[in-house]
């Protein structure tokens, strides 16, 4: 039956393309969504063709097709239309299909009211009676997702994969390192080199030890409450570099990145999953990890200091942004952080040559 093939996803509350990508990926994890015609309900959000294409490819990865997009934004509507995707109103389409087939299941109508993003799954519904059986499963999923803090300020654009080698950026960092003067005393040289590389260690150490070592809490330079203004976090002003990141393509990975694996991108990288120690992620733009980041993350590897690294649990062996490095403090031994339901999402950014880490709920 035609109707059974439909699966409506309401994302009218999604404000950024990142939200849309995150939410869709979560919805698509539901086995119910496979082999369906997906109807996407979007709010006032501007998506370009490539973004829609990537959403489409995401959906086709589970053997479903993106058949309809309802949208308030003209740009999105145009882009969808050029891609041959139906852009009618979900309600109207539903009505017309219902009337042409069977005039039943009117209980599915009340999707008029706006539903908070966290509750998006409640609005995922199908017209077949069998869905109601799967509802308890959906709601339990939903509870879990509510417990985890959601980070919504990410800006991720599209899901087109570009695997160009970023070798030239490594040479750049090399040249900066070789420029250190070479004295006859090599051991001293090594020491100073390491010192300069890990200049920002102190700050990282303070931040990471915040929960473990109370004596260091006063020195924590980054909370506004502490009143210590060691590092002044500049006002958020969008610069060309910021826009450059926004314009970049985004590689989207839904996997556990294991030791020895390298992810390289000329744009942004989003990883849905954990990144184990021993892995490396290099991106010209932002790195966002929806999980535990345990390996080496190098954001802005082409020199963009506005790039950021964010993760639900930030436990990276090394953080690198543009040409600055920070290493994990030695006293942190738990390489594999215990899995728990409480996360403190953190974001690393570049401030005056240092890497500083902010808890995302500080803002």
């Amino acid at each position: 039956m035609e109707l059974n093939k439909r699966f409506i996803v309401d994302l009218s509350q999604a404000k950024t393309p990142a939200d849309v990508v995150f939410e869709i990926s979560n919805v698509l994890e539901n086995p119910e969504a496979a082999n369906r015609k997906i109807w996407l309900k979007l709010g006032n959000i501007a998506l370009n063709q490539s973004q829609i294409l990537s959403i489409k490819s995401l959906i086709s990865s589970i053997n479903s097709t993106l058949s309809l997009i309802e949208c308030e934004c003209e740009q999105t509507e145009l882009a969808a239309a050029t891609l041959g995707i139906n852009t009618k109103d979900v309600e109207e389409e539903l009505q017309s299909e219902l009337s042409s087939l069977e005039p039943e299941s009117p209980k599915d109508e009340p999707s008029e009211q706006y539903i908070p993003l966290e509750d998006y799954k409640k609005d995922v519904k199908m017209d077949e009676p069998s869905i109601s059986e799967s509802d308890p499963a959906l709601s339990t999923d939903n509870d879990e997702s509510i417990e985890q803090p959601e980070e919504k300020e990410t800006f991720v654009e599209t899901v087109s994969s570009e695997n160009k080698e970023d070798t030239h950026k490594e040479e750049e960092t090399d040249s900066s390192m070789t420029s250190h003067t070479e004295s006859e005393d090599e051991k001293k040289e090594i020491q100073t080199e390491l010192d300069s590389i890990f200049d920002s260690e102190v700050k990282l150490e303070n931040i990471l030890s915040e929960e473990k070592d109370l004596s260091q809490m006063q020195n924590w330079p980054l909370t506004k409450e502490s009143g210590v203004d060691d590092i002044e976090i500049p006002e958020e002003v969008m610069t060309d570099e910021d826009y450059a990141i926004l314009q970049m393509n985004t590689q989207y990975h839904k996997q556990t990145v294991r030791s020895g694996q390298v992810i390289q991108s000329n744009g942004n990288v989003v990883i849905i999953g954990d990144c184990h120690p021993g892995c490396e992620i290099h991106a010209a733009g932002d790195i966002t990890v929806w999980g535990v980041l345990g390996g080496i993350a190098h954001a802005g590897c082409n020199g963009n200091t506005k790039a950021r690294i964010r993760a639900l649990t930030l436990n990276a062996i090394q953080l690198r942004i543009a040409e600055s490095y920070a290493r994990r403090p030695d006293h942190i031994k738990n390489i594999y952080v215990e899995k728990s339901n409480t996360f403190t999402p953190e974001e690393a950014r570049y401030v005056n040559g240092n890497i500083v880490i902010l808890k995302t709920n500080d803002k």
Partner: protein
Amino acid sequence: MTGRVIVITSGKGGVGKTTTSANIGTALAKGGSSVVLIDTDIGLRNLDLLLGLENRIVYTLVDVVEERCKLKQALVKDKKNPNLCLLAAAQTRDKSAVDADQLKSICEQLQEDFDFVLVDCPAGIEEGFKTAISGASEAIVVTTPEMSAVRDADRIIGLLEAKEEIKSYKLLVNRVRPNLVKSNDMMSVDDVVEILSCDLIGIIPEDTGIITSTNRGEPIVNDENSPAGKAYTNVAKRIKGEDVPFLDINEPKGFDAFLVKVKSLLGIKA
């Protein structure tokens, strides 16, 4: 200055090559020599973890070989001992990234600046092994008193003998459990030496402290009370040419000694 290049190898995996490298390196450095450890287990590196230097690695052996950085930039200095440096392996590559000639030239360069260049060899006898032994003039063959490990060590010694550059090789018997040897459930060190007909450089008793030290990233030679730590310190002294008697691991100590006493009082055979 021309330092000695020593490769630490075993053939079989899991007998303690990396632990031995980390501990002998640390012990030599504590004794005042300048030491560089090279991890040649590309793709499965562990030596950095054992030394607790994982977070300091920026450049690796592969970066040096592919000329992305200078050799000196890739040397990671130990946290505690300034005499000790590590040249880490790349985790994201495999053994084919470095060939024998390249490692040989790196060893030659390091030889000029360091008293000891210790090469931690990967398991197996393939490419990785051939690369690791390429620069070395001496070898330490690690084995455990098990038939499989001894058989593999025999094969390795054969390969080492066939290589002209290796001037001498010594045997290190790891994870010896005196109790099992006594009850004839484990080969004794003498049996192993007899089978392999090879000079002995050390006997390391089984020590649960190794596990904690590995997890902490702190070599066990830094723990002065540990039997394995003492044994490794002695191995380091023997490498330097000192004549140190082997620890008598058969002699019961502490609670075991007390038990033996009680048993003998009660007339039970120990």
